[in-house]
């Protein structure tokens, strides 16, 4: 029997599956130069025309099957590819050269494309340089058809497959059918790669960045993909299979045990309601949010709009996404967080030494008003649905709020002038995730409609720990009393100013933290949809007085481990198996 091998990668989408390998390969056509006798030249041009027609059919087919909800702009982007394919000038050049040089179509077409590509690749602008990939995307399809190569398509993946590839192009990723694909493993990519984002949106386990993956696997062999640990197991031992069967079974049973809680109200035993909402980064995830009983979207990350496309998204494109989401969630609220990435993600020639302390999030938006305005307009236009709220990330000082509010006013004035309807009473809030914003929260509260505490960044900044750095990541602990005291300060400041205070970091989904946060008076907890049923279960077993006692005590420990030990003693034993799935 073959020896078990564990292939390591980066875990980007949770879950475990066992399935048969389906290797997705795009074959390259080999281009040879062949002379064509004069009497066959017309036929050669005709052959080229047929290859173009066949390719056009393929592209239209993809366009129809594309998952528009994920694709956002891919349908349009395919339009551009079809135009490239049908470009008259290109066709004329190719057919003239076939006749003049008495040479085969694939050779001439390849060389004509190469000329276009060369011209583009000398462009100063990165966007245009990147279009070279589009030219070859179309070109390769045509060449494959000329040479008569068939190729496997993501659409054809059989049921029960683990999709394995070197890389999956964005247009192919949008075609993945979650009914057939159990898991995805690819050789390239990181957490924000298109494949990773698609997998999370479809709730398919995925591992990326697995070196030499394709060469190590055969079509049809059975493997285990563990998206929690970021590994793919080839030829698993019987023991391993048994272990994972147990894991999968536990996961299913646990979900079954929790599922009744989806429907139940999020209230403590003595009747205090705490809104439990969902963090999502993809439009399609609204279905997961609804299914798990979310009372709204507490955080809609808009980063994918910028990461999964070419160039920045237009007002129209953003509006479409925000508007659809608002409609689907009505009347429940949807909080849209404005741009929360580093400046390097949109301005390609920008780099910095210390990105976490650098030019990111609201700082970028406030410096680049033209860029910010597009997003504000799109959000405001979608606010006609009356359930949208705006949230600014990484606010660290009062001036930023006042500047953002001034810009906001400018945009609403413009909309008024243009007679475009929007919600006049839209709530505008901030993320509290920098120590300065938390400390000054009593001064900031009267200028906003809500606070949402971003516990991940707050912890990182308060404790001065980069959790991505293995040497210091053990120091990262959101139960540190320093963090908890700041959270209390923010909640108290918010309530004194009569605004609501939520929390949208990982702390919100930690069952040990829920009694603590309820005790501190939190109004809303926003978490990934998977975590919602468990949070409701914990919440419904608590009473406010006991939570208050727990909170008071927790704030007075010396360090995070003492808090954890205490919470474990108070909470964990009441809910056996609670640490089961995070």
């Amino acid at each position, binding site marked *: 029997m073959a020896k078990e091998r564990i292939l390591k990668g980066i875990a980007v989408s949770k879950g475990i599956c066992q399935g048969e390998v389906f290797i997705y390969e795009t074959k390259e056509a080999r281009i040879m130069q062949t002379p064509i006798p004069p009497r066959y030249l017309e036929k050669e041009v005709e052959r080229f025309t047929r290859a173009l027609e066949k390719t056009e059919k393929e592209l239209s087919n993809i366009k129809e099957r594309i998952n528009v909800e994920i694709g956002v702009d891919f349908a349009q982007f395919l339009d551009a590819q079809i135009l490239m394919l049908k470009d*008259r000038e290109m066709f004329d050049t190719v057919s003239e050269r076939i006749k003049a040089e008495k040479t085969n179509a694939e050779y001439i077409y390849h060389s004509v494309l190469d000329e276009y590509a060369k011209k583009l690749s000398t462009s100063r*602008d990165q966007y245009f340089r990147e279009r070279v990939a589009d030219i070859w995307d179309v070109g390769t399809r045509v060449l494959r058809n000329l040479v008569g190569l068939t190729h496997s398509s993501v659409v054809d993946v059989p049921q029960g497959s683990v999709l394995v590839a070197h890389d999956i192009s964005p247009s192919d990723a949008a075609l993945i059918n979650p009914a057939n694909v159990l898991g995805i493993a690819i050789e390239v990519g990181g957490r924000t790669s298109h494949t990773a984002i698609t997998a999370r949106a479809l709730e398919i386990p995925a591992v990326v960045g697995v070196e030499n993956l394709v060469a190590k696997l055969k079509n049809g062999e059975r493997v285990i993909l563990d998206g929690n640990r970021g590994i793919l197991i080839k030829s698993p031992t019987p023991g391993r299979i048994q272990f994972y069967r147990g894991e999968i079974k536990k996961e299913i049973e646990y979900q079954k045990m929790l599922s009744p809680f989806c429907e139940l109200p999020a209230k403590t035993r003595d009747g205090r309601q705490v809104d439990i909402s969902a963090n999502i980064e993809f439009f399609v995830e609204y279905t997961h949010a609804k299914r798990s009983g979310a009372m709204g979207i507490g955080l809609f990350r808009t980063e994918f709009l910028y990461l999964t496309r070419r160039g920045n998204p237009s007002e129209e494109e953003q509006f479409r996404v925000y508007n659809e989401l608002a409609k689907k969630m009505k009347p429940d609220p949807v909080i849209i967080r404005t741009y929360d990435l580093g400046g390097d993600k949109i301005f390609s020639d920008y780099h910095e030494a210390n990105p976490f302390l650098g030019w990111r999030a609201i700082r970028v938006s406030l410096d680049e008003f033209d860029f910010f305005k597009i997003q504000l307009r799109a959000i405001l236009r979608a606010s006609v649905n009356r359930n949208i709220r705006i949230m600014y990330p990484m606010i660290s000082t009062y001036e930023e709020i006042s500047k953002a509010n001034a810009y906001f006013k400018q945009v609403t004035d413009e909309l008024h002038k243009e007679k475009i309807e929007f919600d006049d009473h839209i709530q505008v809030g901030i993320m509290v995730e920098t120590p300065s914003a938390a400390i000054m929260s009593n001064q900031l509260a009267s200028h906003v409609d809500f606070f949402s505490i971003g516990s991940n960044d707050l912890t990182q900044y308060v404790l001065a720990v980069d959790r991505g750095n293995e040497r210091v990541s053990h120091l990262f602990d959101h139960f540190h009393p320093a963090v908890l005291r700041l959270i209390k300060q923010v909640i108290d400041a918010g309530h004194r100013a009569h605004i609501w205070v939520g929390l949208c970091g990982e702390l919100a989904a930690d069952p040990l933290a829920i009694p603590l946060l309820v005790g501190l008076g939190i109004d809303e907890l926003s978490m990934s949809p998977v975590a919602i049923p468990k949070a409701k279960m914990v919440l419904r077993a608590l009473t406010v007085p006991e939570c208050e006692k727990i909170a008071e005590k927790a704030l007075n420990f010396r360090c995070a481990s003492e808090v954890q030990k205490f919470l474990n003693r108070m909470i964990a034993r009441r809910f056996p198996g609670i640490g089961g799935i995070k």
Partner: protein
Amino acid sequence: MIREEIIIMNENGLHALPASRFVKKAEKFKSDITITKDDVEVSGKSIMGILTLACEKGSKVILTTDGKDEKVANEVLKKILEGQD
């Protein structure tokens, strides 16, 4: 024949989507249509040609329309280049 100098005002320049819109519209006119940038002239009915010009936001181009419907063509196509369509 109408020749007009135009500054590209599209947010990301004349990128694939506005370029496709331009070509789709241009194809409907009988007039010959060209775009010239830095002395390089391409057909306005060829997306490949237009993309190779790599017109960033703010770049100057000359739009030429020549034929029976040159006036309408100029008006319609100008709007796309100026990002008003």
